[in-house]
């Protein structure tokens, strides 16, 4: 990484954190409450409004139903929270609905819950940001036409805060959450006392004509109820986030749930009561109307200063509610990655101990949704609830199964509670799917099976790879060691080519040949290396194909255990990454050779400033230290070790950059069991930058390329389907980038071809 990017990263993201600093990113209750409750609490800013929207379609008589509908919703919230308290206590490791369903109901319900939750998190960001922008435009209507740009700015802001890491986000987010709760309570208290002791304030929209569009039917009441259940969104977030709480985690999470529920229910009922008393009307097709909370606040505070405070706090908490999803989406992704249902890259914590890839994906997906739905809250919200209620239902059903299995004291009572909760949310789920299907819920119902299928196929891929890597390989049995055959690719006669010759000579292969596409090099080559026969390819047409064919022909002459290495000298003009792009032909050629069966690639880079005319580069270096990069003990590693053994090196060692203590121990024991006769070094990579750690490690050898060379051997997976390549880490790429410019370092890729379906 260049110096400038490093400084920029530190300014925007903060200093990199050592993984041991995890403990410090755990949240005390006072901060966990705002971090995880901003989502459920903020839904009060629009839940009443969504229910009113439905009720208004039957005319003025419908509006009176807001109170009974709200009470039903509040009761549901109480049931779900009581039941969820049991979940967080049973599952202190988090994972929420996914974990519970996966463990107790099986893989498919687990994947269903996971898909529902992932979709839910994306929608949480889209809906919250949109509602926040609406709160702003309610206070300042002139901003209405810029709402998508404002929404994007907010997504960018929240994304950046989250790339910085959990705790600092927590401190910053505490203020608006507590502020929102306070100002809403103040609004309710003022409104209630004005109604009780004087005259009720009247909302600006109270006189709007309300022509009845529909008859008051049971279905319509159900629709209003379903719309009101948006008040429950976000409850699942606490259950998923237990690992971010400070110890004792379960207890703290359960307490936070209770406090959150008490706040949420009182606020929701208060707002609905005031909506009824002030006769607020909210219509679906009316542009430029202010949100229900804005109208109530304006009426209660007579449009004064406090009205603007309510709007500011609503906007702030809504923007930050998106933050809840930013906590959970990356965390769930990492859990899924660990369980092999998502690409392993989602497990990587970034510089600030945040799962950076998850954060970025979430930002992109929610941004797309906002554009598609034109930042229209009512349309977006139709998609929202299906995922939430699927996860509620599965999680509680899973809890029932778990209690039945464990049969701990008093399990019947608790199972009955969870079972009741599951039944209720299951029924509500059907109601939501039924009443909102045509209005947008179908998109989610169609999307979920796609997510499930994708996760299932990722899992199948990983398990077949694992099986293939672990399968006993004839390689480990007694047999003749593979001989080394090397082919030097001569593009021109330069210092890098000469050095390649020296390096190759030090490796004492069974056979060395050279190949070129330029007939002009032949006579000079004979003077340089008389003993190495040079084959000239025509150079017409596709060089890559010709080279591949040449190697394939050579391969057929060899025993299957022999190695055939293509040596690629590379003279670099500078130590800048731009070098990689300067010769796209060579880069593509190297990539193409990686997929050629039975061919290994030895890259000998040399930077022009290393050229010293007084040195004969073709003389073999006295010492060659071989490092084999290892991530586990499996066939790909064993093959790379055997390759290293064929190089006649000064010494061979395996090296691994691990970070978690358990994995180091397992790897060490596997290494000892496999009886690999070489030392293994496991090096801490405290700032999780493998490239930098490797660079520092290499530098201790003081390789100069002339007397002393370091050879880095990298086992690489090559999968048969190109789209699967993304499921395998880009560690090799990162490593190559870092070793390319190190003095006296050559790199070997030893591809391991996976044949899985």
């Amino acid at each position, binding site marked *: 990484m260049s110096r400038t990017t490093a400084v920029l990263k530190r300014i925007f993201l903060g*200093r990199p954190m050592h993984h041991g600093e995890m403990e410090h990113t755990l949240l005390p209750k006072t901060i966990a409450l705002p971090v995880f409750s901003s989502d459920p609490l903020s839904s009060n800013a629009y839940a009443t409004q969504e229910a009113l929207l439905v009720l208004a379609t039957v005319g003025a008589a419908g509006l009176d139903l807001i109170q009974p509908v709200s009470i039903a919703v509040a009761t549901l919230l109480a049931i779900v929270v009581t039941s969820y308290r049991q979940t967080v206590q049973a599952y202190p490791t988090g994972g929420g609905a996914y974990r519970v369903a996966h463990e107790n109901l099986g893989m498919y319900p687990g994947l269903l819950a996971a898909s529902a939750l992932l979709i839910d998190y994306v929608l949480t960001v889209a809906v919250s940001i949109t509602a926040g922008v609406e709160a702003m435009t309610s206070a300042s209507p002139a901003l209405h036409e810029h709402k998508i740009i404002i929404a994007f700015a907010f997504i960018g802001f929240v994304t950046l805060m989250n790339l910085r890491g959990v705790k600092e986000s927590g401190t910053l987010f505490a203020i608006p959450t507590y502020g929102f709760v306070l100002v809403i309570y103040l609004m309710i208290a003022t409104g209630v006392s004005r109604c009780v002791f004087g005259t009720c304030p009247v909302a600006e929209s109270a006189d709007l004509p309300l022509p009845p569009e529909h008859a008051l039917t049971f279905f319509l009441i159900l629709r209003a109820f379903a719309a009101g259940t948006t008040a429950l969104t976000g409850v699942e977030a606490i259950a998923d986030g237990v690992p971010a709480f400070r110890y004792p985690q379960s207890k703290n999470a359960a307490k936070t749930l209770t406090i959150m529920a008490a706040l949420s229910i009182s606020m929701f009922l208060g707002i609905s009561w005031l909506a009824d008393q002030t006769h607020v009307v909210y219509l679906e097709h009316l542009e430029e109307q202010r949100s229900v909370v804005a109208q109530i606040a304006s009426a209660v505070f007579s449009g004064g200063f406090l009205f603007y405070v309510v709007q500011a706090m609503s906007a702030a908490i809504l923007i930050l509610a998106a933050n809840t999803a930013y906590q959970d989406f990356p965390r769930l992704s990492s859990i899924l990655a660990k369980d092999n249902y998502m690409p392993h890259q989602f497990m990587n914590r970034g510089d600030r101990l945040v799962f950076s890839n998850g954060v970025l994906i979430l930002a992109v997906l929610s941004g797309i949704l906002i554009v598609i739905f034109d930042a229209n809250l009512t349309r977006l919200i139709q998609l929202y609830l299906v995922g939430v209620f699927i996860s509620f239902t599965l999680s509680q059903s899973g809890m029932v199964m778990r209690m039945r299995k464990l049969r701990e004291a008093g399990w019947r009572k608790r199972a009955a509670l969870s079972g009741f909760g599951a039944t209720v949310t299951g029924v509500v789920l059907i109601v939501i799917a039924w009443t909102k299907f045509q209005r947008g819920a179908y998109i989610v119902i169609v999307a979920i099976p796609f997510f499930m299928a994708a996760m299932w196929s990722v899992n199948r891929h990983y398990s077949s790879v694992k099986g293939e890597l672990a399968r006993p390989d004839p390689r480990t049995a007694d047999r003749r060691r593979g001989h080394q055959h090397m082919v030097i690719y001569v593009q021109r006669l330069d210092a890098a080519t000469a050095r390649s010759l020296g390096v190759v000579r030090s490796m004492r292969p069974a056979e060395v040949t050279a190949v070129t596409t330029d007939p002009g090099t032949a006579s000079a080559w004979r003077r340089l290396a008389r003993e190495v026969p040079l084959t000239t390819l025509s150079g017409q047409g596709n060089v890559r194909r010709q080279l591949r064919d040449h190697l394939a022909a050579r391969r057929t002459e060899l025993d299957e255990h022999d190695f055939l290495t293509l040596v690629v000298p590379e003279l670099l003009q500078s130590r800048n990454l731009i070098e990689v792009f300067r010769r796209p032909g060579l880069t593509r050629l190297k990539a193409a050779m990686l997929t050629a069966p039975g061919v290994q690639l030895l890259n000998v880079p040399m930077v022009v400033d290393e050229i010293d005319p007084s040195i004969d580069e073709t003389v073999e270096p006295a010492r060659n230290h071989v490092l084999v990069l290892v991530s586990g003990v499996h066939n790909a590693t064993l093959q790379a070790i055997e390759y290293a053994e064929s190089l006649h090196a000064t010494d061979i060692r395996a090296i691994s950059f691990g970070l978690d203590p358990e994995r180091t121990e397992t790897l060490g024991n596997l290494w000892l069991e496999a009886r690999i006769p070489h030392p293994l070094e496991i090096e801490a990579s405290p700032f999780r930058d493998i490239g930098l750690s490797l660079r520092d490690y290499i530098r201790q050898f003081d390789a100069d390329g002339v007397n002393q060379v370091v050879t880095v051997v990298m086992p690489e997976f090559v999968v048969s389907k190109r789209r699967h390549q993304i499921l395998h880490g880009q560690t090799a790429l990162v490593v190559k980038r870092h070793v390319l410019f190190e003095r006296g370092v050559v790199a070997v890729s030893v591809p391991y071809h996976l044949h899985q379906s």
Partner: protein
Amino acid sequence: MAFLGSFFRDLSRTPEETRADNLRDWTATIRGAVPIAELKPRERAKVAGVIQNIRIDPREGSGSIEATIIDGTGQMVARWLGRDRMPGIGLGMGLLIEGMCGVGDEGELVILNPEYDLVADPETG
């Protein structure tokens, strides 16, 4: 503004420096532990540090497991000979070792087959 304060301090101090500070503060709290910088060869010593590197050498004759620990003042090696299992250690763990301090082939400080204990360290808790 504590937030801004730490922000600017972060910028002026490298991560490695902050880490060394933390480690020194931590070893100071462990009773009897001597900072690595103050160790003398051929004396018994008790040292605490965080495991930075583990080297496993299964080759016959020299089979050994080594852990390099750092404490913010320096680094040293704990070496166990003739083992075919890991002694329950992992990268990043806090290690308290006690034994006769010697000097290894490359001039590094070594305690051979030390008595050892895992301790909660400031980084992994």
